[in-house]
């Protein structure tokens, strides 16, 4: 089942349904339940940033919600501050906390990140329970005022409901605005293929930071609205139950879709009402529902709402001719004395290598000779132990991968790195994500034209996950070329390709080099490499053992020895 409906009619239907139910059928208790649903929409929208888009299992969302609630609760009940002052503070305080702890926490791997955020929540709960003078301790504080904006009070019932859902709609609009374009696409690439994100110039740390702070801000806003609704503040708002509820809503509704947040929040808040007959077992039922959804509908309810392709999109693709690919600027690179060890194993041992603009250099060598390590150091995926890498005289040694990518070094991978859930055209368009001057429409047009160069326009809208190997290789290269890098590093580009596919790929590479790019091709396949490369460099055990014209290098004894073993009669054993 898949309901195809545009976003505008979908949200219009939801809004009308809520309005009709609220005005026509709901009791005052029902109104309150629906208001709380609207509050949860906001906290779930926030959680989607870090959990859905950034793909990090934060367990601090409940804590941010609770902190927002306590800021409003304490300032409102003890100091009589009004909504106009407390609401911004309820957003700001958790956001600042998130920004402060982001540095140590966000670089952790997923399981430590989950642990650290969980411990943060527990720590804050401890403070709330025990700092009785300020928080009221386990009993909390009564007398939180309602919402008053410039002396206009918003009474409970329909008015508060409309206000909360209005804010939820604004929060949704903001989330949509932030994520609808290339920026949202870069999150998908980061989440599904972190290596590709690095190679395409996407700053993963920055994306995670933004997502974490946004999630905290949304959580705080929702917490503030929550205490205005229930009018007391107690440690319950910091309990793990709220975190679990938000997680469940996000999983059940959908991790990145706005409609998912709405469905998840309404469903989960009303579930206790519908399961009331189960009494104390209703939380058990909630756990069962969460488990069943994860097992049988892992993408959540929102996955059943498909987006209808708009007519504008169909028209935006006239017969595009392959574009003339030119690097953004002409630049070569120089490597001097590069070394790298893994444990006690010298992967690279003082390697020198220069590639000039317009030149195609082949890098050969047996398995384990250090070819991929060299590519990883050049593109910043790993840091060298010693040596220098310069790009037109500029020292780029040890820069983070995304900075190097932005300076104009592109690469492909031995195993193509393509986000499985993206269409081919979006996988290539995502390469423009680091470019602030680009937008999704122009990025897609360019991606389409690039795909045309590989004869892939017919497949442009298919998903990467269902493509054959040859297509994935071509798309990987198209994405690497999308930023028009000055330098391109190809790691075994012909492996697993048919002869026709390899020929097409070689044609693209040759043209791009002829237009001024510096190209480094790592490969074993001499039938592919010999006609393509102008120079060959051979690595063995981390050292350059031969370099020069291709025909000369393959004839050299050292190269033959490296590939086929030492010659039978070596100089040392001769009499």
């Amino acid at each position, binding site marked *: 089942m898949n309901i195809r409906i545009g976003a505008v009619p979908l949200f219009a239907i939801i809004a009308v349904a809520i309005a009709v139910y609220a005005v026509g059928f709901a009791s005052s208790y029902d109104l309150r339940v629906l208001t709380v649903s609207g509050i949860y929409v906001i906290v779930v929208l926030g959680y989607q940033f870090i959990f859905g888009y950034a*793909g990090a299992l934060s367990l601090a969302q409940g804590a941010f919600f609770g902190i927002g609630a306590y800021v409003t609760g304490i300032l409102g009940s003890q100091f009589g501050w009004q909504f106009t002052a407390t609401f911004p503070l309820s957003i700001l305080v958790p956001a600042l906390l998130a920004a402060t702890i982001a540095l140590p926490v966000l670089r952790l*791997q*997923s*399981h430590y990140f989950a642990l*650290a955020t969980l*411990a943060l929540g*527990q720590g804050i709960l401890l403070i709330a329970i025990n700092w009785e003078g300020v928080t009221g301790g386990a009993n909390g504080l009564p007398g939180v005022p309602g919402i008053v904006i410039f002396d206009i009070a918003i009474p409970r019932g329909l008015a508060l409901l409309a206000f909360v859902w209005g804010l939820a709609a604004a929060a949704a609009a903001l989330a949509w605005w932030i994520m609808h374009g290339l920026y949202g696409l870069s999150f998908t690439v980061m989440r599904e293929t972190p290596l590709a994100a690095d190679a395409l110039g996407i700053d993963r740390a920055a994306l995670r930071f933004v997502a974490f702070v946004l999630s905290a801000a949304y959580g705080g806003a929702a917490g503030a609205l929550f205490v205005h609704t229930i009018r007391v503040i107690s440690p319950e708002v910091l309990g793990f139950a709220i975190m679990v509820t938000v997680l469940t809503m996000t999983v059940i509704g959908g991790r990145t879709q706005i409609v998912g947040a709405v469905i998840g929040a309404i469903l989960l808040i009303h579930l206790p009402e519908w399961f009331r007959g189960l009494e104390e077992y209703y939380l*058990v039922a909630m756990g069962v529902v*969460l*488990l069943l959804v994860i097992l049988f509908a892992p993408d959540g309810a929102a996955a059943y709402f498909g987006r209808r392709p708009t007519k504008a999109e169909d028209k935006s693709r006239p017969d595009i001719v392959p574009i003339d690919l030119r690097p953004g600027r002409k630049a070569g690179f120089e490597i001097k004395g590069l070394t790298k060890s893994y444990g006690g194993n010298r992967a690279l041992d003082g390697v020198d290598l220069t590639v000039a603009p317009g030149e195609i250099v082949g890098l050969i060598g047996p398995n384990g000779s250090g070819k991929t390590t060299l590519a990883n150091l050049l593109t910043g995926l790993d840091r060298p132990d010693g040596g220098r890498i310069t790009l037109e005289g500029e020292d780029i040694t040890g820069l983070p991968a995304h900075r190097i990518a932005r300076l104009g070094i592109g690469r492909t991978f031995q195993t193509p790195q393509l986000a499985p859930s993206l269409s081919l055209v979006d996988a290539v368009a995502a390469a423009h994500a680091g470019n602030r001057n680009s937008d999704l429409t122009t990025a897609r047009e360019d991606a389409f034209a690039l795909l045309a160069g590989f004869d892939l326009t017919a497949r442009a809208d298919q998903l990467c996950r269902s493509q054959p190997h040859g297509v994935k290789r071509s798309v990987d290269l198209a994405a690497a070329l999308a930023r028009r890098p000055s330098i391109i590093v190809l790691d075994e580009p012909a492996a697993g390709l048919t002869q026709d596919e390899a020929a097409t790929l070689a044609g693209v590479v040759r043209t791009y080099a002829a237009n001024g790019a510096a190209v480094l091709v790592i490969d074993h396949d001499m039938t592919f490499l010999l006609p393509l490369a102008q120079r060959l460099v051979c690595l063995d055990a981390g050292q350059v053992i031969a370099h020069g014209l291709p025909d000369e290098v393959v004839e050299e004894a050292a190269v033959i020895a490296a590939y086929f073993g030492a010659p039978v009669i070596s100089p040392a054993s001769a009499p």
Partner: protein
Amino acid sequence: MRVSRFTPSPLEGEGWGGGYTKNFRIPRKVLMFAAQLALNALALGAAYALVALGFVLVLNATTAVNFGHGDTVVAGGFLAVALATLVPGDLAVPGLVLLPAILALMALFGALMSWLVYLPIRDRPPVTTFITTIAFGIIIANGVNALFGGAPRSAPSLIGSGGFSAGELFLSRQSIAIIIVSAILIGGLALLLNRTQLGRQLRACAQDPEMAQAIGIHLTRMTVITFALAAALAGAAGLLLANQFFVTPSDGGVLMLKAYIAVTIGGWGSLRGAVAGALLIASFEVAVASQFSQLVAEGLLYVTLFVVLFFRPQGLFGEPLGQRA
């Protein structure tokens, strides 16, 4: 020479000058107090070690965190509470009699858990397992809450209550029994993993599932056994902890967190590290709680965790790992 009135002259007063160098030693009271703390910490740490071992066994088998592990301990505790009604009240060793039954029933429970929360989703990213185990934890915690109510309950002691006094030192029977039972269980686990064919197969699956499968090891069966072992250890820990410290349905979160922290401190995936981490946490908790309060101990534990993660994101003893989850 003018000497300040407040500076005691070396010649006068026997209290400070003389005794300072001659008979310097730690007062007996302090020594006894420290020994008492060490004993208490060892008993608590032994029980925590069982929890942490179960946690790390599943972690190694699935590369995912079992968020329901703490709730499994709670389930074990309440199982002990429930079974205690079947044991005659005048029995000298009520808890010890229950232990085999709890190990067996919890092992079954663990096997069931693996079928529900892991086997159906083993091909999906580890985050999926996080969520299924959270869901399972919710079901346990709230199921227990519905059956037994939310009040703290106490399980029978292993070999009766009371204890012996040795000078100022109080050796509670329960503490000593906890230490002995835990040591036997941990030793048994070590024997199983290191000395038996089954143990080798389990370790092979944890280290390289694909290779293990390629040489004919039944991966699914090993996963189920791992979950069973983990739950049995958790159940035993539940029985051991639920006497002195009581058990409430909502305890699972904090227990899971402590196992998680123990494994983080001890080195991700290391069994010995898990035991060391558990003992460290228990010592920390007992020492801080004796000077301040349980609350300060818990708060400081989280702060310490953050400090450890800040300076050593790979854990205290762990080697840096690549992208794993």
